[in-house]
């Protein structure tokens, strides 16, 4: 029972972490609180479903198409929709407020498009749903894949941010955009790049969760909410924090569901969230301001 709970929590937590990593980049570096984030996740789920059912393309192969597309679309969204806001904003706070309102509109547009193309139906397909034996317990293979990808993406993002020149520039912008500009970092470029990377991670999450979750055009907000909790719990803009917070939440939910009462999972999620914020207001890996 214990191994069951751990494995189940790790796979769920891996999914939370993966989805939250994109939002932490968008929010932490670009300072865009993207309320339409979950819609991008679900849009990718639909595209993966479409490619799988009509083209017979494995979701893992379709990542090769969907991830670059997600990157490009997010880059365009930032360039066309959000750059005017960035240019106009007098302060970071003003940009956050403006971006919340405009991405709230974007949420309805993306949701509306999905409703037009795919309808409001529940959608689900089965891929790589074979039982795998690990440590004497059984788990679905596709969930292990999601966990694997979460760790892989987490590691790649961490390496990129910590060890590359571009990564340092992104971190600099997250800490202080004005100072970053003074030392010749192109702030607007860095913000656009971070937003697009965040979008690419969002669609990766969407493709992967489509393998084992039932989704429809209206559940994007669930992902936005969960991701937002993980992002704030882990420390805004901190990829390692998102990874840790996501996995902690997954484990907590799974332990509560197994050993206490499945009815309390949501309550406990928020209790942990509050506790973390009380002890460390900047998030687990965040620095207090």
């Amino acid at each position, binding site marked *: 029972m214990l191994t069951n709970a751990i494995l189940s929590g790790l796979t769920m937590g891996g999914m939370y972490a993966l989805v939250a990593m994109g939002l932490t980049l968008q929010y932490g570096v670009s300072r865009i609180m993207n309320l339409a984030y979950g819609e991008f996740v679900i849009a990718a789920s639909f595209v993966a479903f479409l490619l799988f059912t009509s083209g017979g393309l494995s979701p893992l192969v379709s990542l090769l198409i969907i991830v670059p597309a997600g990157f490009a679309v997010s880059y365009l969204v930032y360039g066309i929709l959000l750059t005017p806001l960035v240019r106009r904003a007098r302060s970071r706070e003003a940009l956050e407020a403006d971006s919340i309102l405009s991405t709230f509109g974007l949420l309805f547009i993306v949701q509306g498009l999905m409703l037009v193309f795919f309808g409001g139906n529940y959608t689900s397909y089965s891929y790589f749903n074979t039982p795998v034996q690990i440590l004497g*317990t059984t788990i679905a293979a596709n969930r292990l894949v999601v966990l694997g990808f979460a760790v892989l993406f987490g590691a790649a993002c961490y390496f990129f941010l910590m060890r590359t020149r571009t990564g340092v520039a992104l971190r600099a912008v997250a800490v202080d955009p004005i100072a970053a500009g003074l030392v010749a970092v192109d702030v607007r470029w860095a913000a656009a790049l971070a937003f697009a990377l965040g979008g690419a991670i969002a669609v990766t999450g969407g493709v992967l969760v489509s393998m084992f979750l039932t989704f429809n055009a209206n559940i994007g907000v669930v992902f936005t909410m969960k991701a937002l909790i993980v992002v704030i719990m882990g420390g805004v803009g901190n990829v390692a924090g998102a990874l840790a917070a996501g996995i902690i939440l*997954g484990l907590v939910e799974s332990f509560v569901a197994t050993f206490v009462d499945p009815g309390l999972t949501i309550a406990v999620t928020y209790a942990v969230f509050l506790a973390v914020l009380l002890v460390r207001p900047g998030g687990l890996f965040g620095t207090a301001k």
Partner: protein
Amino acid sequence: MKNLSKLRLSYALCAASLALIAASPALSQESVRIGYVVSKTGANAGGATTSTIPNYELWVHEINEAGGIQVGDQKLKIEVVEYDDRSSSEEAVRAVERLATQDKVDFILTPWGTGNNLAVGPIFDKYGYPQIAGTSVTDRAPDLAKRWPNSYWLLGTGGSYAEGFVDLLVKLREEGKIGDEVAMASIADGFGIELSTAGRTALQENGFKLVYDQTYPLGTQDLAPIVNEVKALNPDVFIAFSYPPDTLGLTDQARVLGFNPKIFYTGVATAFPLYKDRFKDAANGVVSLGGIDPNDEKVKAYIAKHKEVTGKEPDRWASFMTYAGLQALQQSIEQSGTLDKEKVSEVLRTGTFDTVLGNISFDNENRQVPNIFTVGQWQDGEFVGLVPTDKEGSGELVFPKPEWPAAQ
């Protein structure tokens, strides 16, 4: 907040333009004006686009293709005014009020779901529109039928589903096929609460032992812990009063984790074509609410027509009630020969109608269809009605549930 008010404004403009389009040709009665409010977006959209919207479209299409409804000596085509309630009951109430007072439609079709139908009940009643609910399961149906005399509750009460299923279990136990131990999981929301309460009472009254009895919140994505725990208890019977995403999730996890009780029962969406498409052979033997007689000619014709017009099959539960309700409305308009709401209601209350559910009449205390299938089972690609066992066309339970087939 500026954007928010703009949003409101654009909704209002949309509504106004819709109303204008709809209102212009209605000077003399050249058509029957039918209005409806359904959840095209929001949390309810999944259910509404499966059971409600396709049937409304099919019905309107069929009538208009045949030249219209016979009202007295005229044949009138249907003109539709529709609104989206965005899965909010406040919005549904407002829109129904608008249909009644501004659009002045002749009849209003009901919204999707138990909650919204309870919410709009007083408005239907206030303006004297018959409320024929095809997607509401509530134990209060008999009270509501008294309070709102023009309301009809085709899907019956939660109790009838739970009791029908427990009767089946009692019979199996008498035959020595199952023991006393039952595990039950339910969603902590309207349907799950109502059904699990009724189920718990019926199970305990009949001396069953609930070895697992837990609820889980709306939007639970990880169902593996529940299945793992229940599997360890090894009950003969597993019941889940679940919503569509968790119905699929629980089935999926049970299959992956190799949990195969003798009776495996899941909730809403088990009878959806989605379930069959998703699980194919693995659906065989799964028990749930609803069911049909697959050999009935009317049922076959309805499924074929539904597929032809809307491009997909109907679900094997609420779609049938919804469509039967529409057929009853149409026939009562034709029999009364008028669009007068009161006269049509009179016929609805007392008449007998030839529908996809057979010949039905609402002439009873609680304004329900007597004798609908409450328990069904997937058997070779069809969801066959089992209980009530004395109902014509009811099938035999396949027992025990076959092994889950190897991975797809």
